[in-house]
């Protein structure tokens, strides 16, 4: 499995609210709400931690789901968020994310 790295886009404003994360794209003011699992992945998107490690450590251990299914869902999620312009996805570690 090739490593996948994810980083929050620096033009995305966001806040955690209870078990959700609200994200606003600064480029077009679009508003997104991430559910509990997506919020976990979002908060771990530091550009340095591989997606597989995020899924293994934060999703599989907390939710009743196998790694393969969780990773497949996570890949789909991060591609969607990248398509919205609020997440960066790369095969290499990413510098220049929001750095939080």
């Amino acid at each position, binding site marked *: 499995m090739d490593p996948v790295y994810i980083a929050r886009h620096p*033009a995305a*404003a966001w*806040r955690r609210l*209870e078990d959700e994360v*609200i994200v*606003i794209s600064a*480029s077009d003011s679009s508003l997104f*709400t991430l559910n509990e699992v997506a919020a976990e992945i979002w908060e771990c998107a530091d550009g340095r931690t591989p997606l597989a490690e995020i899924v293994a450590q934060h999703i599989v251990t907390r939710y009743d789901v196998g790694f393969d299914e969780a990773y497949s869902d996570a890949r789909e999620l991060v591609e969607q968020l990248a398509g919205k312009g609020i997440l960066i996805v790369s095969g290499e570690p990413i510098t220049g994310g929001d750095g939080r």
Partner: protein
Amino acid sequence: MQRESARFRVVINIGGLATGFVGTDLAIAQSLERRYHGYLASPLAPATCEFTVVRATARVEGDNAGVEITHHDGRWFIRRGSLSAEYDPVAARGSAHLDDRPYDIDSLLRIVHTLLLAREGGFLLHAASAVRDGHALVFAGASGAGKTTICRLAPPDAVLLTDEISYLRPTAYGYTAFGTPFTGELGIPGMPISAPVRAVYLLAHGDRTRIEPMRPAEAVRSVLRHVLFFATEPESVQAVLNAVCQFTRSTPVYRLEFRPEPDVWERI
């Protein structure tokens, strides 16, 4: 011999933030004084920001032109129809080419106040608001949701702050709503007064009056959908998001379905 034109200075105070306009086109001065009659400060008053204004050469009919705001080299550049402006937030000075009709000046004021308020934890909301019993009630909703209707149903002791754009910023008394001259369907400017906000109601028409509290995340999402967003720089957008989160932590937010009958005001 060249004769120097007379210069004017008009200061408009909305929400405690004074915006100065200087120029030589007296038609623009008269338009400002007429439209913002209740919000004029002394021409000598200090201003939070100041614009040199000249008449735009291009004219665009209607007020449906899209807003284009860019930010580079530390300056904001604003275009909307015949309005073209730039603003340096460090110097608190800018210049604008605009028409003497209401659209341009209203647009410039709304945009500038939005950008200034973001730094102070405030924001503009598509919402009607009114003061009753010393507190402000805010009624947010898209066009057709009932902002004008709720204003028309207001009892005599309610003082209208706006029927279209609510002005919200934190003060020593908590989040406070200020009157604005920005009008909607009602066409009546709000009174230039302020009061701490008691509650926000997200409006929807219904077959009976029903009020339900919103949980925090839902409240933030709902309020955000009605915030006037012009900024495109991430810091300003983050500031607005933080402001809305702070606002909804300290202010109850309700969903209000209502029938257009006067007793709705007694229920809230």
